[in-house]
């Protein structure tokens, strides 16, 4: 990221709004964003599938869809923040399993269900803190650390329960996890998700802490010199990821009524795929939560539509994979084309730099696209 910053930026500090995302009028910023593109894709897929795939237009589709993607929706929130700092957490699904198993084992041993849930959340915090410790204090790359803890947490989870599964959770709890809000088609878990989504959106987009997250992702060194506590921020984010994963683990356990060591196997990749599809850059520094939420729903809706159209799981994987590749490659290729096009005719800008405050900034922007 460092190489992308145009040194001439410093010469035009006070012309208009140089903070790139705030240069254009509000309506343009809102309507022409990657987030809106993902939401538009979601709406198109939904309408198209409703028109062509039998049974897709029933309200029950939405219920099942939301129930299925709920754990991914939950984990995608903190994961977005982690990826924006330029880190990654591959251990989330294993944390889900470890929390699920801890919850199940404690409940099985006679612990009240609320205490078991709190303990499972603590397990999540510890898992996240351990990741965060290795990344920030020991200074290892998060990719390596969390590949390790992916195996470690999963191993502990399978080891704790062995060949058994804990079932028979209190019905009031499992009914809630599978239930809907009143008479509507929206699953109850969406209340939890909505609360968390609001909290995370505020945290990321409307607080100094959130701006620090973007700053770290764009340029960690610069962020550090501007007084952002990089290590602490990352540690907090890994812990948040841990605790939300544990929450997803408890939900998962209750929804399926079964605590097993192999719960949520492979979910980390679904979460990361959805986050990237939602417009978050894997290199950090870029992304927004509304797009991520749409990304999760988009992948879920495509899977649901293809299943109803009697397509096999392989087709669903191929389509989701292609979509991800197209969205990542597509935006880089178009960005590259854009930069070539502008590089071909830079004269007006360079001859009258003062007349166009957008010039240097747009140079930087096109590189990011």
């Amino acid at each position, binding site marked *: 990221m460092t190489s992308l910053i145009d040194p001439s930026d410093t010469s035009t500090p006070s012309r208009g709004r140089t903070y790139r995302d705030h240069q254009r009028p509000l309506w343009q910023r809102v309507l022409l964003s990657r987030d809106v593109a993902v939401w538009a894709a979601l709406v198109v897929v939904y309408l198209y599938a409703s028109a062509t795939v039998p049974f897709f237009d029933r309200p029950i589709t939405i219920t099942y869809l939301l129930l299925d993607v709920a754990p991914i929706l939950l984990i995608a929130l903190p994961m977005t923040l982690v990826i924006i700092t330029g880190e990654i957490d591959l251990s989330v699904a294993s944390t889900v399993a470890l929390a699920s198993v801890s919850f199940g084992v404690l409940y099985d041993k006679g612990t009240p269900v609320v205490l078991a849930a709190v303990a499972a959340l603590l397990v999540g915090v510890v898992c996240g803190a351990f990741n965060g410790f290795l990344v920030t204090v020991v200074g290892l790359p998060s990719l390596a650390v969390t590949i390790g803890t992916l195996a470690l947490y999963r191993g502990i989870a399978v080891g704790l329960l062995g060949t058994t599964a804990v079932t028979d959770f209190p019905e009031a709890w499992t009914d809630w996890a599978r239930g809907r809000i009143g008479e509507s088609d929206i699953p109850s878990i969406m209340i939890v998700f909505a609360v968390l989504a609001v909290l995370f959106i505020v945290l990321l987009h409307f607080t100094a802490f959130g701006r620090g997250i973007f700053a770290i992702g764009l340029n960690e060194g610069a962020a550090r010199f501007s007084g952002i506590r990089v290590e602490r921020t990352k540690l907090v984010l890994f812990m948040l990821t841990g605790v939300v994963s544990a929450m997803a683990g408890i939900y998962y356990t209750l929804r399926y009524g079964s605590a097993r060591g192999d719960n949520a196997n492979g979910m980390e990749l679904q979460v990361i795929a959805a986050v990237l599809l939602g417009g978050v850059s894997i290199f950090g520094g870029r992304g927004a939560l509304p797009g991520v939420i749409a990304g999760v729903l988009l992948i879920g809706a495509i899977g649901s539509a293809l299943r109803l159209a009697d397509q096999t799981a392989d087709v669903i*994987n191929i389509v989701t994979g292609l979509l991800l590749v197209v969205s990542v490659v597509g935006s880089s290729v178009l960005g590259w084309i854009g930069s070539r096009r502008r590089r071909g005719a830079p004269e007006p800008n360079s001859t009258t730099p003062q007349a166009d405050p957008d010039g240097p900034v747009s140079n930087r922007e096109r590189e990011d696209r």
Partner: protein
Amino acid sequence: MTTQTTRRRGLARFVPAVAAVLGMSLVLAACGGSDDEGNGGGGGDDVSVTFLPKNLGNPYFETSSKGGKAAVEEFEGTFKEVGPSEATPDSQVSYINTLTQQGTGAIAISANDPEAIGDALQEARDAGTKVVTFDSDTKPEYRDLFVNQADAKGIASKQVELIAKAIGDQGKIAILSASANATNQNEWIKLMEEDLKANHPKIQLVETVYGDDDDQTSFDKTAALLQKHPDLKGIVSPTTVGIAAAARYLSDSQYKGKVQLTGLGTPDQMREYVKNGTVGSFALWNPEDLGYLTAFAAKALVDGDIKGEEGDTFEAGKLGEYTVGADGVVLLGDPLEFNKDNIDDFQF
């Protein structure tokens, strides 16, 4: 100038989105070819039976679905097979939900977890779909019938009998199982342990390892077993994936013929190893018959001929008449022993 750059930038920003949307609708258009409304369960005499195996791409379930398809064609119903790519309960739930929405007549499912898919199955039944489990059961309250390939005791004692015969009733053996949570395998292993203790005191079971029904994992676990226990006399693998991987390892190693292998396998996968002397004999029920019987059981339920209660009887085509036992279980029959004399009579 400013407006021009802005417009270009806006365009560049929007093009990927448009491209993504277009690409996606193309893909969907290609896939959504079948616009005809699915024929629901209530479609006259046409019985629709959907097979939902643990996962797709598993030769065992391909064979059982083949039998199911043959049966459905015989009674002129509608056959369909769907399933996840990985054998996990949560992915199976998505498929059950989908089938509930489509209103299929009956679901024939091999359960990845006895509890986790229960709620989804219950919803399907509330919507009028009949549920028959085969191969791997759920708790009895979640399904109408369970078609059992052979009772666990029969399977366990058959495998103990085969390994005892192969190693001369004494020495160290190990078990290479499927995943650590596999309902069937765990039950069989427990019964095998009891049988060994009671009737074969000179056979010592030293370890049970889990190959997760994955070819490479099972292969690696076999290698590890043989390194860890150099004096191992035999391996029992009560899973078709495991026994094939173990046979492949043994047949290329110094242990070929010295370490005996038996368990549950399919003739097609094991033919080579039976013929080259790696494996003396192994056992299995006929999965094709299992699928066939399951489809007929589903039809009998959909038609209302049986309710899944003990004592109900129904006709299953070429297999003859079957009676529903306690807990709504229909038993296919005893497992079959395959060896070099009869293996060429079977193609699955």
